[in-house]
């Protein structure tokens, strides 16, 4: 199987978007990550839902997680309003965040190749090299897992074609 067979389109956000707006997209679509593009529209990073959540939690609680337990319920609810707003760009540039550059794969790469690269880079999403802007195609981790399961199933039961249909539905969500 080739990467091009499982590549899909994904929404791409820009660096100027607020972390709050990114959080709304993630929450609305139950995504695990979103793709961020640079000024030219080229995908430059994948920001995970956890990193977006980091932008909404006060930095002192990220530095010292045990402090989160000292609040009562009322105090804990008040804390959210006091967090200064951050953009996705600031989040990417923050040395403390673990935002990674996006993994690029060739459209002709095999499933095995892209799976190995995604494991090595711990990537949630890879961009397929070629078109730049909103037409960019991506390979998502759920899609790769789905394809891997399907291929394994076919390899172990070559005469039992069709049984893998239930694994064919790729989750377009990242």
């Amino acid at each position: 199987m080739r990467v091009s067979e499982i590549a899909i389109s994904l929404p791409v956000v820009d660096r100027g978007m607020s972390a709050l707006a990114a959080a709304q997209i993630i929450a609305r679509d139950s995504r695990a990550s979103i793709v961020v593009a640079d000024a030219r529209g080229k995908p430059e990073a994948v920001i995970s839902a956890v990193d977006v959540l980091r932008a909404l939690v006060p930095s002192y609680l990220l530095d010292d997680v045990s402090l989160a337990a000292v609040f009562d319920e009322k105090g804990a609810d008040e804390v959210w309003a006091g967090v200064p707003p951050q953009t996705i760009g600031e989040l990417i540039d923050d040395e403390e965040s673990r935002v990674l550059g996006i993994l690029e794969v060739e459209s002709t790469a095999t499933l095995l190749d892209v799976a190995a690269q995604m494991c090595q880079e711990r990537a949630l999403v890879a961009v397929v090299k070629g078109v730049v802007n909103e037409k960019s195609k991506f390979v998502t981790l759920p899609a790769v897992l789905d394809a891997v399961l399907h291929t394994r199933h076919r390899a172990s039961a070559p005469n039992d074609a069709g049984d893998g249909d239930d694994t064919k539905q790729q989750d377009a969500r990242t």
Partner: protein
Amino acid sequence: MSVQIILALIVFAGAYVLIATEWVPRMTVALVGAGLMIVIGATDDHGVFFSEKTGVDWNVIFLLLGMMIIVGILQQSGVFEFLAIWAAKLAKGRPFVIMVMLVVITALLSAFLDNVTTVLLIAPVTLLICERLAVPVVPFLIAEVMASNIGGTSTLIGDPPNIIIASRGGLSFNDFLINLAPIVLILLVVYIGLCWLMFRTQLRFNPERVERVMALNPREAIRDVSLLIKSLVVIGLVLSGFILHSVLGVGPAIIALLGAGVLVLITRLEPRKIFADVEWETLLFFVGLFIMVGSLVNLGVIEYVGKVAIEAIGDNYFGAATGLLFGSAVVSGIVDNIPYVATLAPLTSDLVQAGGAAAHPLWWSLALGADLGGNLTAIGASANVVVLGIAKRAGHPISFWTFTKYGLIVTAITISLCLPYIWLRYFM
């Protein structure tokens, strides 16, 4: 002057410039500089690994390693957060009283932990308290980091330069306590007065916010009571070992390593947590520095400078102590005090050997100047840089000049107060 000496001086000066400007990570600079010293023949493998005078000071490396492991485990217990919140509640939300309590806690912790660890522990809880009280956090953070630099001066393990001085000068934990703790105590009292003068107008008491501090539950910060008890017992034993080390006949580095070993054994934490706070980069930075300075010792450069200094000083050791105190404060305020003290320590050792007991106070001048000088500018100490980073991330940036304007006042006053102390105590 031979070509080898000229090359060694160029390598040393170049490394110093790169460390001071931070164009390249300091560990990289120190290790490359050390490598170049070996390449030009300024030292060799025996000189690097086995010579007490020209090699890596393993006492310093392993004392730092042992303490990093112990403190790394202790800080996972949440005891420091407990103390800070407890103090804020005790102060009933009055900002200046809270500031005084946090300053005292920070100074006390700094005496036993390294300054960067101390501010990493105290800054987050300070942000929390200030957010609850709706008071500006910048005065608190500046007050704490300066208290950390002051408190760290008082003991052998409080600041890395002191560890180098202790090792090169053959000084014990008790020597530091007896000679430096009294003046640090005085400086702390004066410093609290300075905090009042510098920050009082920014600290407005808001009775409506007090309830938000009183609602905090410090007990919840203690994550692991068993870990806390074990850590405190081991720290107590290690500190007792430091105090009794001349009786026990065991050096501070071995005591720290034994303490770390016992703590690892009884807490059974996974290696990732045990070594989480070991700053390998700092340890390798020290290794590189020791090799570079050892190369200069090996080539006779330090001895030559020492002879020139001895001739210039004559028997005016109070003058030398004064020069060392103020000179060290200025230099340490601009460049990292670790390479400065690593360079000055062998030189001071030569001066003390030549002058005997009369020259011994030079060690204390060096320690006071180098440690307290860290308050001079925003880049004068690693702890300052760390706090500036924490403040920026929290949305309360502290500019270089905001910090430095307070630093100039605090350093000028604290260093000036050290001079009469040195005179009265050692030269009267």
